[in-house]
């Protein structure tokens, strides 16, 4: 397999080739998708779909900046199609999910700002009761098993599952836009 990097376009006004888009953005697209699906297999499935769609839809009249915005838009619609398909969501549920999970970055032309996502997650965690925060932290940020989490918090495994459920429910209902008050 040829790993050589393609020649970069000289100006952002030049149309990038698909290979250039791939080299520049594949990592960011993958991370964006991973942050929505949370597992490697699905992130790989969807990242593949994005670039194979891009292969068919690339438009040589787009300059580098708009090509990048377009690529992230392809990623969003790919995730939306995927959710609709595997979760069998009704249209209004999908819209609801998209509003919650697929917010556009502040500036569509910039890369997805992952530090903004980090801050958002921190803010959400900070609003939760301590026990909810603890369970989510152990389970998701530290990747503890149910058993390890139960031991760390001195509660039963059944309780970890119930608290995890309640905590995720609350966390997913928080509107991060209203957190800065």
């Amino acid at each position, binding site marked *: 397999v040829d790993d050589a990097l393609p020649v970069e376009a000289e100006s952002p006004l030049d149309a990038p080739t698909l290979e250039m888009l791939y080299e520049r953005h594949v990592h960011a697209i993958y991370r964006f998708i*991973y942050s929505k699906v949370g597992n490697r297999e699905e992130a790989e499935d969807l990242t593949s779909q994005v670039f194979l769609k891009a292969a068919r839809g690339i438009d040589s009249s787009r300059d580098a900046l708009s090509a990048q915005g377009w690529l992230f838009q392809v990623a969003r619609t790919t995730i939306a199609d995927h959710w609709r398909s595997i979760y069998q969501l009704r249209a209004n549920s999908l819209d609801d999910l998209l509003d919650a999970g697929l917010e556009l970055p502040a500036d569509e032309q910039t890369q997805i700002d992952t530090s903004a996502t980090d801050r958002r997650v921190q803010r959400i965690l900070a609003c939760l009761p301590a026990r909810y925060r603890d369970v989510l932290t152990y389970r998701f940020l530290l990747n503890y*098993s149910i058993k390890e989490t139960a031991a760390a918090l001195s509660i039963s495994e059944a309780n970890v599952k119930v608290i995890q459920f309640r905590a995720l429910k609350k966390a997913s209902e928080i509107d991060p836009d209203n957190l800065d008050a």
Partner: protein
Amino acid sequence: MTSPNDKSQRPADSSGIEEDLRPPSRDEAQAASALDERIERMRAERRAKSARLSSGEARMQVMAAGLRAQRPDADEPDPDFITRLRQRVRDSEEAPEPVSLEERRRSAPSRPKGVSRRVILAGGLGVAAAAAAGVAVGVGVERAANTPQSWPALVPAGRGVWLPVAEVDELAVGQTLRFTANSVVGFVRRTADGYAALSGACTHMGCFLDWNASARTYDCPCHGGRFTEDGASAPSSPVAYRPLPTLQTRVEDGKVWVYVPATSVAPNGGSPTITPYASHGNESRKA
């Protein structure tokens, strides 16, 4: 079930969100278990199973994903994946293929019958990291129309090797066994008059199929695709997918042998200790 919390340790919080200390109802406990199953699948880095979720459940799933992505380096792609996809993107520029579900639906019936075309087919890989849909092994396959009469063969004659995948007495008639050999994950099944083998990768996106012994179908955990035991798209499949490619089988030395691609594309894929069986003659049985 016991109370979900110890009241003496009830935390003071300033968020306005109260911790719910009531014991869970039966429904809530069930929902909590179902959610935990989906989370454990995520922790195993495996793709979510197809399931009907309410809007709230889907939001919780996405919240869990967002939290998981906060772990250091959790969201770094596998370099092998990046390399494989790069090649696939290059190939697709030369021969673009429809990829979306809608396009598959639209294009499938209009494909001219009997026209061979080169397709990138997920033969499946034996390694978890490479289990990505259709990214797996690009095996060029000559195939014709979607009719049972012209079932596609995964490995064209002369391009593969014979490998043993099962003992003859391991399988009773009607029984199915999953195998991994070189880069192929497949199923071998004992039929009334011999053995038949199929690729175990869904023809939709290459996810590995599960054998459903009660329904006698191969079920796709990704998007619910279903195939009959002889590889046709099952009537209960939500979308009619291309049939599963077949693999040639033969019986010799008390073993069932399957004709698989000659080289293992992935490191650690398959069974390197197995000595290839010399390919000869026409006594092979076509599944």
